[in-house]
Protein backbone atom coordinates (compact mmCIF):
# COMPACT_ATOMS: atom_id res chain seq x y z
CA UNK A 1 0.00 0.00 0.00
CA UNK A 2 1.07 3.54 -0.65
CA UNK A 3 2.00 5.59 2.39
CA UNK A 4 -0.59 7.92 3.85
CA UNK A 5 -1.07 10.96 1.66
CA UNK A 6 -0.43 14.33 3.23
CA UNK A 7 -3.13 16.96 3.49
CA UNK A 8 -1.48 18.98 0.76
CA UNK A 9 -1.44 16.01 -1.58
CA UNK A 10 -5.12 15.32 -0.98
CA UNK A 11 -6.02 18.98 -1.36
CA UNK A 12 -4.10 19.17 -4.60
CA UNK A 13 -5.78 16.01 -5.87
CA UNK A 14 -9.16 17.50 -5.10
CA UNK A 15 -8.61 21.07 -6.21
CA UNK A 16 -6.49 20.39 -9.27
CA UNK A 17 -7.58 16.89 -10.25
CA UNK A 18 -11.21 17.01 -9.15
CA UNK A 19 -10.74 13.92 -7.02
CA UNK A 20 -13.78 13.87 -4.73
CA UNK A 21 -12.44 10.81 -2.96
CA UNK A 22 -9.56 12.92 -1.75
CA UNK A 23 -12.05 15.42 -0.44
CA UNK A 24 -13.91 12.69 1.45
CA UNK A 25 -10.71 11.42 2.96
CA UNK A 26 -9.88 14.89 4.22
CA UNK A 27 -13.34 15.19 5.74
CA UNK A 28 -12.95 11.85 7.50
CA UNK A 29 -9.49 12.79 8.66
CA UNK A 30 -10.67 15.96 10.38
CA UNK A 31 -14.01 14.87 11.75
CA UNK A 32 -12.27 14.27 15.09
CA UNK A 33 -11.30 17.95 15.07
CA UNK A 34 -14.93 18.87 14.36
CA UNK A 35 -16.13 16.70 17.25
CA UNK A 36 -13.57 18.22 19.56
CA UNK A 37 -14.62 21.77 18.69
CA UNK A 38 -18.33 20.94 18.78
CA UNK A 39 -17.93 19.52 22.28
CA UNK A 40 -16.88 22.98 23.48
CA UNK A 41 -20.33 24.31 22.60
CA UNK A 42 -22.49 21.31 23.50
CA UNK A 43 -23.39 22.67 26.95
CA UNK A 44 -25.54 25.33 25.30
CA UNK A 45 -28.46 22.98 25.02
CA UNK A 46 -27.79 21.57 21.59
CA UNK A 47 -27.25 17.91 20.83
CA UNK A 48 -23.57 17.18 20.26
CA UNK A 49 -24.37 15.23 17.10
CA UNK A 50 -26.22 18.20 15.67
CA UNK A 51 -23.30 20.49 16.39
CA UNK A 52 -20.93 17.99 14.80
CA UNK A 53 -23.04 18.05 11.65
CA UNK A 54 -23.00 21.83 11.63
CA UNK A 55 -19.27 21.93 12.29
CA UNK A 56 -18.74 19.48 9.44
CA UNK A 57 -20.23 22.05 7.09
CA UNK A 58 -17.54 24.47 8.22
CA UNK A 59 -14.90 21.82 7.60
CA UNK A 60 -16.20 21.14 4.09
CA UNK A 61 -16.25 24.85 3.31
CA UNK A 62 -12.68 25.13 4.53
CA UNK A 63 -11.58 22.24 2.33
CA UNK A 64 -13.41 23.66 -0.68
CA UNK A 65 -12.07 27.16 -0.19
CA UNK A 66 -8.53 26.21 0.79
CA UNK A 67 -5.91 28.07 -1.20
CA UNK A 68 -2.99 25.78 -1.99
CA UNK A 69 -0.70 28.74 -2.49
CA UNK A 70 -1.14 29.89 1.06
CA UNK A 71 1.47 28.62 3.41
CA UNK A 72 -0.89 27.45 6.14
CA UNK A 73 -1.94 24.04 7.31
CA UNK A 74 -5.47 22.85 6.66
CA UNK A 75 -6.09 22.56 10.41
CA UNK A 76 -5.13 26.21 10.87
CA UNK A 77 -7.56 27.26 8.19
CA UNK A 78 -10.33 24.83 9.08
CA UNK A 79 -10.55 25.51 12.82
CA UNK A 80 -11.97 29.06 12.59
CA UNK A 81 -14.27 27.93 9.78
CA UNK A 82 -15.70 25.13 11.92
CA UNK A 83 -16.10 27.37 14.96
CA UNK A 84 -17.57 30.08 12.78
CA UNK A 85 -20.20 27.74 11.40
CA UNK A 86 -21.19 26.61 14.90
CA UNK A 87 -21.37 30.18 16.14
CA UNK A 88 -23.42 31.12 13.13
CA UNK A 89 -25.86 28.40 14.09
CA UNK A 90 -26.21 29.84 17.60
CA UNK A 91 -26.51 33.31 16.21
CA UNK A 92 -29.37 32.24 13.99
CA UNK A 93 -31.11 30.58 16.90
CA UNK A 94 -31.26 33.96 18.59
CA UNK A 95 -33.69 35.19 16.00
CA UNK A 96 -37.34 34.59 15.69
CA UNK A 97 -37.88 31.75 13.29
CA UNK A 98 -40.08 34.04 11.26
CA UNK A 99 -37.16 36.24 10.26
CA UNK A 100 -35.60 34.89 7.08
CA UNK A 101 -31.87 34.35 7.05
CA UNK A 102 -31.38 36.93 4.32
CA UNK A 103 -33.10 39.57 6.40
CA UNK A 104 -31.00 38.71 9.43
CA UNK A 105 -27.84 39.10 7.38
CA UNK A 106 -29.09 42.38 5.95
CA UNK A 107 -29.72 43.60 9.48
CA UNK A 108 -26.14 42.79 10.43
CA UNK A 109 -24.87 44.43 7.23
CA UNK A 110 -26.89 47.57 7.90
CA UNK A 111 -25.59 47.70 11.43
CA UNK A 112 -22.07 48.01 10.05
CA UNK A 113 -23.13 50.55 7.44
CA UNK A 114 -24.77 52.68 10.12
CA UNK A 115 -21.47 52.70 11.98
CA UNK A 116 -19.49 53.64 8.90
CA UNK A 117 -21.87 56.38 7.79
CA UNK A 118 -22.13 57.82 11.28
CA UNK A 119 -18.38 58.37 11.27
CA UNK A 120 -18.34 59.55 7.67
CA UNK A 121 -21.26 61.98 7.99
CA UNK A 122 -20.60 62.96 11.61
CA UNK A 123 -24.29 62.29 12.28
CA UNK A 124 -26.75 59.47 12.22
CA UNK A 125 -27.58 58.41 8.64
CA UNK A 126 -31.04 58.54 7.14
CA UNK A 127 -32.82 55.51 5.76
CA UNK A 128 -32.28 56.83 2.25
CA UNK A 129 -28.55 57.01 2.87
CA UNK A 130 -28.54 53.48 4.23
CA UNK A 131 -30.46 52.25 1.21
CA UNK A 132 -28.02 53.88 -1.15
CA UNK A 133 -24.99 52.52 0.68
CA UNK A 134 -26.42 48.99 0.78
CA UNK A 135 -27.74 49.28 -2.76
CA UNK A 136 -31.24 48.28 -1.72
CA UNK A 137 -34.66 49.93 -1.56
CA UNK A 138 -35.61 52.11 1.40
CA UNK A 139 -38.45 49.74 2.28
CA UNK A 140 -35.95 46.90 2.50
CA UNK A 141 -33.90 48.95 4.96
CA UNK A 142 -36.99 49.48 7.05
CA UNK A 143 -37.86 45.81 6.91
CA UNK A 144 -34.37 44.82 7.98
CA UNK A 145 -34.32 47.35 10.81
CA UNK A 146 -37.66 46.07 11.99
CA UNK A 147 -36.40 42.51 11.87
CA UNK A 148 -33.94 43.46 14.58
CA UNK A 149 -36.89 43.85 16.89
CA UNK A 150 -37.53 40.14 16.50
CA UNK A 151 -34.18 39.36 17.96
CA UNK A 152 -34.48 37.48 21.20
CA UNK A 153 -33.57 39.71 24.11
CA UNK A 154 -32.25 36.63 25.83
CA UNK A 155 -29.64 36.19 23.16
CA UNK A 156 -28.38 39.69 23.80
CA UNK A 157 -27.59 38.88 27.39
CA UNK A 158 -24.04 38.33 28.39
CA UNK A 159 -24.02 35.23 30.53
CA UNK A 160 -21.74 34.20 33.30
CA UNK A 161 -19.35 32.48 30.97
CA UNK A 162 -16.73 34.75 29.53
CA UNK A 163 -17.16 32.86 26.31
CA UNK A 164 -20.51 34.51 25.83
CA UNK A 165 -18.81 37.66 24.70
CA UNK A 166 -17.64 35.98 21.56
CA UNK A 167 -21.07 34.47 21.11
CA UNK A 168 -22.67 37.85 20.78
CA UNK A 169 -24.37 37.49 17.44
CA UNK A 170 -23.98 40.95 16.08
CA UNK A 171 -20.69 42.13 17.36
CA UNK A 172 -18.21 41.49 20.03
CA UNK A 173 -19.09 43.37 23.16
CA UNK A 174 -15.49 43.24 24.28
CA UNK A 175 -14.01 41.61 27.29
CA UNK A 176 -13.47 44.73 29.30
CA UNK A 177 -15.74 44.96 32.27
CA UNK A 178 -17.60 48.21 32.45
CA UNK A 179 -17.07 49.20 36.03
CA UNK A 180 -19.30 52.16 35.62
CA UNK A 181 -20.31 54.05 38.66
CA UNK A 182 -23.46 56.06 38.29
CA UNK A 183 -22.86 59.53 39.59
CA UNK A 184 -26.41 60.18 40.67
CA UNK A 185 -26.96 58.14 43.79
CA UNK A 186 -30.65 58.75 43.48
CA UNK A 187 -30.64 56.92 40.17
CA UNK A 188 -29.13 53.86 41.81
CA UNK A 189 -31.92 53.93 44.31
CA UNK A 190 -34.61 54.28 41.68
CA UNK A 191 -36.88 51.22 41.69
CA UNK A 192 -35.92 48.77 38.99
CA UNK A 193 -32.57 50.35 38.26
CA UNK A 194 -30.71 47.72 40.22
CA UNK A 195 -31.77 44.99 37.80
CA UNK A 196 -29.49 46.48 35.16
CA UNK A 197 -25.91 45.52 34.66
CA UNK A 198 -23.12 48.07 34.49
CA UNK A 199 -23.20 48.44 30.75
CA UNK A 200 -26.97 48.91 30.66
CA UNK A 201 -26.73 51.55 33.38
CA UNK A 202 -23.99 53.32 31.51
CA UNK A 203 -25.96 53.34 28.26
CA UNK A 204 -29.10 54.65 29.94
CA UNK A 205 -27.09 57.26 31.78
CA UNK A 206 -25.45 58.46 28.57
CA UNK A 207 -28.80 58.61 26.77
CA UNK A 208 -31.07 60.03 29.42
CA UNK A 209 -28.74 62.06 31.63
CA UNK A 210 -25.92 63.05 29.31
CA UNK A 211 -28.22 63.44 26.33
CA UNK A 212 -26.00 61.57 23.88
CA UNK A 213 -27.69 60.16 20.81
CA UNK A 214 -27.71 56.44 20.21
CA UNK A 215 -25.05 56.83 17.54
CA UNK A 216 -22.82 58.79 19.89
CA UNK A 217 -23.27 56.16 22.59
CA UNK A 218 -22.45 53.46 20.07
CA UNK A 219 -19.18 55.14 19.27
CA UNK A 220 -18.32 55.67 22.90
CA UNK A 221 -19.16 52.14 24.03
CA UNK A 222 -17.80 50.46 20.93
CA UNK A 223 -20.92 48.69 19.74
CA UNK A 224 -23.35 49.44 16.93
CA UNK A 225 -26.16 52.00 17.09
CA UNK A 226 -28.65 49.22 16.46
CA UNK A 227 -27.27 47.28 19.38
CA UNK A 228 -27.50 50.38 21.58
CA UNK A 229 -31.11 50.75 20.49
CA UNK A 230 -31.89 47.16 21.44
CA UNK A 231 -30.12 47.48 24.78
CA UNK A 232 -31.97 50.67 25.70
CA UNK A 233 -35.29 49.07 24.83
CA UNK A 234 -34.45 45.94 26.78
CA UNK A 235 -33.18 47.89 29.78
CA UNK A 236 -36.34 49.96 29.99
CA UNK A 237 -38.43 46.81 29.71
CA UNK A 238 -36.44 45.26 32.54
CA UNK A 239 -37.01 48.30 34.71
CA UNK A 240 -40.74 48.29 34.00
CA UNK A 241 -40.97 44.56 34.69
CA UNK A 242 -39.06 44.94 37.93
CA UNK A 243 -41.25 47.79 39.11
CA UNK A 244 -44.35 45.81 38.23
CA UNK A 245 -43.10 42.66 39.95
CA UNK A 246 -42.26 44.55 43.11
CA UNK A 247 -45.76 45.91 43.27
CA UNK A 248 -44.48 49.44 42.99
CA UNK A 249 -46.92 50.27 40.28
CA UNK A 250 -49.73 52.45 41.39
CA UNK A 251 -52.81 50.71 42.69
CA UNK A 252 -55.68 50.12 40.27
CA UNK A 253 -57.48 53.18 39.09
CA UNK A 254 -59.90 54.51 41.62
CA UNK A 255 -63.47 54.98 40.56
CA UNK A 256 -63.52 58.70 41.09
CA UNK A 257 -60.96 61.46 41.28
CA UNK A 258 -61.66 65.01 42.09
Amino acid sequence: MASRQTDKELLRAYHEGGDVTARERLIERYMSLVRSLARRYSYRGEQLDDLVQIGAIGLIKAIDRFDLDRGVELTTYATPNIIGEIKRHFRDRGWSVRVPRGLQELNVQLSRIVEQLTVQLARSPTIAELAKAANIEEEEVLEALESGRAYSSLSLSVGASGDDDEMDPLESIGTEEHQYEVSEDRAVLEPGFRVLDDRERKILHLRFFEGLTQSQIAQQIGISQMHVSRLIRRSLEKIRDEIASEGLEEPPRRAATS
Partner: protein
Amino acid sequence: MDEIVLTMPRNRRFFDVAHLVVGGLAIRLNLTVDNLADLQLALAGLLPREDTDGDVTVVLRLDGDAIDGRIGPFAPGPLRRELERDGGDGYGTHHVLETVFDSYRLDEEDGSAWVAFRMAITPTPRSG
Protein backbone atom coordinates in the same frame (compact mmCIF):
# COMPACT_ATOMS: atom_id res chain seq x y z
CA MET B 1 -51.20 69.71 7.19
CA ASP B 2 -50.56 66.00 6.77
CA GLU B 3 -51.86 63.75 9.48
CA ILE B 4 -51.70 60.02 10.10
CA VAL B 5 -54.18 58.47 12.50
CA LEU B 6 -53.70 54.85 13.47
CA THR B 7 -56.18 53.16 15.77
CA MET B 8 -55.50 49.58 16.76
CA PRO B 9 -56.39 47.02 19.41
CA ARG B 10 -54.42 47.43 22.61
CA ASN B 11 -52.57 44.22 21.91
CA ARG B 12 -48.85 43.65 21.42
CA ARG B 13 -49.43 41.85 18.13
CA PHE B 14 -50.59 45.11 16.60
CA PHE B 15 -47.87 47.35 17.97
CA ASP B 16 -45.46 46.34 15.21
CA VAL B 17 -47.88 48.00 12.80
CA ALA B 18 -47.35 51.29 14.60
CA HIS B 19 -43.60 50.83 14.40
CA LEU B 20 -43.84 50.20 10.67
CA VAL B 21 -45.98 53.29 10.17
CA VAL B 22 -43.41 55.37 12.02
CA GLY B 23 -40.73 53.77 9.86
CA GLY B 24 -42.62 54.73 6.73
CA LEU B 25 -42.92 58.25 8.01
CA ALA B 26 -39.18 58.28 8.67
CA ILE B 27 -38.56 57.42 5.04
CA ARG B 28 -40.86 60.16 3.82
CA LEU B 29 -39.41 62.80 6.12
CA ASN B 30 -35.86 61.58 5.63
CA LEU B 31 -35.38 61.15 9.36
CA THR B 32 -32.13 59.86 10.72
CA VAL B 33 -31.86 56.41 12.23
CA ASP B 34 -31.46 58.05 15.64
CA ASN B 35 -34.71 60.01 15.20
CA LEU B 36 -36.54 56.87 14.14
CA ALA B 37 -35.15 54.87 17.07
CA ASP B 38 -36.27 57.61 19.48
CA LEU B 39 -39.78 57.71 18.11
CA GLN B 40 -40.05 53.95 18.30
CA LEU B 41 -38.67 53.96 21.83
CA ALA B 42 -41.44 56.31 22.92
CA LEU B 43 -44.04 54.12 21.24
CA ALA B 44 -42.58 51.03 22.89
CA GLY B 45 -42.87 52.75 26.25
CA LEU B 46 -46.44 53.94 25.87
CA LEU B 47 -48.33 51.46 23.73
CA PRO B 48 -48.07 48.42 26.03
CA ARG B 49 -49.61 50.24 28.99
CA GLU B 50 -52.43 48.06 30.25
CA ASP B 51 -54.14 50.47 32.60
CA THR B 52 -57.19 50.87 30.43
CA ASP B 53 -59.22 48.91 27.90
CA GLY B 54 -60.23 49.48 24.31
CA ASP B 55 -58.26 50.60 21.29
CA VAL B 56 -55.19 52.77 21.38
CA THR B 57 -54.66 55.56 18.85
CA VAL B 58 -51.48 57.11 17.53
CA VAL B 59 -51.82 60.46 15.78
CA LEU B 60 -48.84 61.89 13.91
CA ARG B 61 -49.19 65.34 12.39
CA LEU B 62 -46.53 66.95 10.25
CA ASP B 63 -46.14 70.59 11.12
CA GLY B 64 -43.31 72.21 9.21
CA ASP B 65 -40.07 71.07 10.75
CA ALA B 66 -41.71 69.12 13.54
CA ILE B 67 -43.89 66.13 14.22
CA ASP B 68 -46.78 66.74 16.58
CA GLY B 69 -48.16 63.56 17.99
CA ARG B 70 -50.73 62.19 20.37
CA ILE B 71 -50.97 58.72 21.86
CA GLY B 72 -53.85 57.49 23.98
CA PRO B 73 -56.22 57.09 25.58
CA PHE B 74 -54.78 55.93 28.87
CA ALA B 75 -56.13 55.85 32.37
CA PRO B 76 -55.19 59.32 33.60
CA GLY B 77 -54.41 58.56 37.23
CA PRO B 78 -51.65 55.97 36.90
CA LEU B 79 -49.94 57.73 34.02
CA ARG B 80 -50.04 61.15 35.67
CA ARG B 81 -48.67 59.77 38.92
CA GLU B 82 -45.98 57.85 37.05
CA LEU B 83 -44.86 60.93 35.17
CA GLU B 84 -44.83 63.01 38.34
CA ARG B 85 -43.03 60.37 40.34
CA ASP B 86 -40.35 60.00 37.70
CA GLY B 87 -39.73 63.70 37.51
CA GLY B 88 -35.97 64.15 37.39
CA ASP B 89 -35.13 60.71 38.70
CA GLY B 90 -34.53 57.32 37.21
CA TYR B 91 -35.35 56.12 33.74
CA GLY B 92 -39.09 55.87 33.73
CA THR B 93 -41.58 57.05 31.19
CA HIS B 94 -41.06 60.71 32.03
CA HIS B 95 -37.36 60.55 31.40
CA VAL B 96 -37.79 58.71 28.12
CA LEU B 97 -40.37 61.17 26.83
CA GLU B 98 -38.43 64.16 28.04
CA THR B 99 -35.30 62.95 26.28
CA VAL B 100 -36.65 61.81 22.95
CA PHE B 101 -39.14 64.64 22.43
CA ASP B 102 -38.57 68.37 22.41
CA SER B 103 -41.63 68.72 24.58
CA TYR B 104 -44.49 66.64 25.83
CA ARG B 105 -47.51 67.03 28.04
CA LEU B 106 -50.31 64.98 29.46
CA ASP B 107 -53.75 66.03 28.24
CA GLU B 108 -56.68 64.83 30.27
CA GLU B 109 -60.10 64.94 28.70
CA ASP B 110 -63.33 63.09 29.30
CA GLY B 111 -61.79 60.86 31.92
CA SER B 112 -58.89 59.68 29.81
CA ALA B 113 -55.33 60.82 29.25
CA TRP B 114 -53.37 61.43 26.05
CA VAL B 115 -49.66 62.01 25.74
CA ALA B 116 -49.10 64.90 23.33
CA PHE B 117 -45.62 65.53 22.07
CA ARG B 118 -43.58 67.60 19.67
CA MET B 119 -40.43 66.38 18.00
CA ALA B 120 -38.36 68.72 15.85
CA ILE B 121 -37.05 67.27 12.63
CA THR B 122 -33.52 68.08 11.67
CA PRO B 123 -33.65 68.73 7.92
CA THR B 124 -31.44 66.20 6.17
CA PRO B 125 -31.23 66.85 2.45
CA ARG B 126 -31.75 63.92 0.17
CA SER B 127 -28.76 63.27 -2.03
CA GLY B 128 -29.10 62.23 -5.64
